């Protein structure tokens, strides 16, 4: 019993302790000129879907959930966002060469087709970020069109 108590106290101290470790927050109220929505003529329904389902991790501005400041959740989010932005940042779209754009669009299509994006760990909480089959198809068709027009 004593051992359990000690472990509980250690865990509690550790949990409180890690709350003081700072994380970088991905927030910006400026949309740069290179943004995907600004340089492409994106239909409104697709704009909404991209915003809700992709922009949290693939842009410079995340709409954080309420628990985002609690560790270790904050770390987990920070990591995902960093990785997501390195792979593709919609805010910086127009700074890519046309080869890179084509390549990214192809990856977007593949990822949505295979149901890999948005991530399950993301849609688990953001229920509205999940694509229905029809929505996925609509987005894929539109992105394919954009790719072929480049």
């Amino acid at each position: 019993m004593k051992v359990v108590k000690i472990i509980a106290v250690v865990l509690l101290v550790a949990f409180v302790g890690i709350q003081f470790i700072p994380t970088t927050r991905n927030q910006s109220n400026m949309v740069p000129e290179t943004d995907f929505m600004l340089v492409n003529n994106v239909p409104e329904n697709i704009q909404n879907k991209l915003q809700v389902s992709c922009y949290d991790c693939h842009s410079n501005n995340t709409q954080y959930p309420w628990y985002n400041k609690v560790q270790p959740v904050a770390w987990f989010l920070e990591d995902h966002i960093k990785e997501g932005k390195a792979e593709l940042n919609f805010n910086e779209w127009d700074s890519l060469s046309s080869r890179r754009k084509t390549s990214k669009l192809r990856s977007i299509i593949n990822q949505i087709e295979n149901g890999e994006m948005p991530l399950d760990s993301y849609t688990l909480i953001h229920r509205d970020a999940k694509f229905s089959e029809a929505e996925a198809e609509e987005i894929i068709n539109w992105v394919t069109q954009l790719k072929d027009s480049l």
Partner: protein
Amino acid sequence: MKKLKMSIATMLLLAVSFTNAQEKEKMKMDHKMDHGKMMDMNSDAKAEAILNDYFSLKNALVADDTKKAAQEGAKLVASLKAFDTSSYTKEQQEELADIIEDATEHAEHIAESAIDHQREHFKTLSKDITDMVAITGTKNTLYQQFCPMYDKGSAWLSTNNEIRNPYYGSRMLKCGKVQKTIQ
């Protein structure tokens, strides 16, 4: 007598140092020439190294060998990084930099993905490598081959004109045709 000895010694010394200096100069020139030659060979050799890694990767995909393909993908990342484009024109350098950036990303993904993913990335990678060869050239004859079934039609490069399909492997080993011969 003593004077004579001294002057002979001095002459000898001078002669030795002149020869030595000359030899050094020659060595320097030889070295320079070697270096010049090596530079040329290096830039070619580095593009060939990229191609070699690409072909090993292709062969691994033909053999349905995910693990090998991942290893070859990682090697390709390294050979792409080692590619020195400084001997090309400014325009070519810009295009090569773009190609290398794109190809590196695909090779990185291939190094850490399952086979379906590896094949998806291999498609775009093949386009990048084909564009690279258009600039760098190659000492071997290459065949651009094409499979009309995979992802609405997909191409790849091979050193052999016989079809061995990297997109389907054993499922459809001989699906495709030679589209173009690159020399």
